[in-house]
């Protein structure tokens, strides 16, 4: 009997603390698969965010650093400058990357640091109980905007990935999702490309993964994937925004 698919070796056997059906666990698995396929686990350094992925270091068996809230790109810049032959990436959520760490994110990308940034966008602050995030959609209800996000009161959703594509320091900017098998395959390819760019020192790579937060959205994982496809993807369309430094 031939084994067609199994859990990547670099993904530890511990049960992840994520809620059932969380996009974080799926992206963790993809990161582990890509690192294993590239054979770079001995010289890969990940930077954990603050947010739901704060415990990422427990789950993927490589070296990790836990950064202060939002400061992961700054931390990654330092590691990459000290160890230029290492693969350095950050793994951040929307609250960490697009709110608390907007400055660090934009500055690190604009400096063209040779790091990969994996950005999980679930339009909500998941860990702290489903508060409004910069990426929350217009009209979306959260615990801090129970009547839905309104432009005059809360402003507009932040398109941080589109901003990243305009910066001269970025070489690869893409937006992917993990709601079905085809999109998972594309996300895996995107992560691999970003990691390769970090190793090749081509500049900063930015991979947004549009994801779900079934607990924060108060839905089942299945409903959350459907809601994401119906509501988030029209607002955050999938595809490459920048490849090899050329805007699409």
């Amino acid at each position, binding site marked *: 009997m031939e084994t067609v698919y199994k859990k990547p070796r670099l993904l530890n056997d511990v*049960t992840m603390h994520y*809620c059932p059906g969380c996009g974080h666990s799926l992206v963790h*698995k993809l990161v582990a698969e890509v690192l294993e396929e590239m054979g770079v686990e001995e010289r890969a350094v990940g930077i954990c965010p603050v947010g739901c992925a704060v415990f990422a270091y427990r789950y993927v068996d490589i070296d990790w650093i836990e950064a202060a809230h939002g400061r992961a790109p700054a931390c990654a810049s330092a590691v990459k400058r000290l160890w230029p032959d290492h693969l350095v990436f950050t793994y951040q959520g929307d609250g960490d990357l697009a709110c608390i760490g907007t400055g660090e994110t934009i500055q690190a990308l604009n400096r063209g640091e040779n790091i990969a940034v994996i950005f999980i966008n679930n339009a909500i602050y998941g860990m702290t109980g489903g508060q409004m995030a910069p990426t929350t959609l217009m009209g979306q209800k959260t615990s801090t905007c129970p009547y839905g996000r309104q432009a005059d009161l809360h402003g507009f959703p932040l398109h941080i990935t589109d901003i990243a594509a305009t910066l001269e320091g970025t070489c690869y900017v893409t937006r992917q999702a993990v709601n079905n098998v085809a999109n998972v395959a594309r996300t895996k390819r995107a992560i691999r490309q970003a990691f390769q760019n970090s190793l090749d020192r081509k500049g900063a790579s930015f991979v947004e993964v549009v994801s779900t937060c079934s607990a924060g959205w108060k839905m089942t994982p299945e409903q959350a994937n459907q809601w994401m496809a119906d509501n988030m993807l029209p607002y955050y369309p999938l595809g490459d925004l920048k490849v090899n430094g050329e805007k699409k």
Partner: protein
Amino acid sequence: MIKGTIKVDTDRCKGCNLCAVACPKKIITLSETVNRMGYHYAQQSDNDACTGCAACGIMCPDGCITVFRERL
């Protein structure tokens, strides 16, 4: 003919049902009993229909599913 089969790590499964949604043959169901974490875990309900396409394994967020395939 190709026959597939899956093995679910029932202790780590959280019963999110995404494997069942992804299965093109719709032969994954959630168990009646629960695991030690209190979740209804995924199980293969039809032993003959599986083609070993691995869609369930790819979609499993927790990496609980191993997919095998054999040529009969």
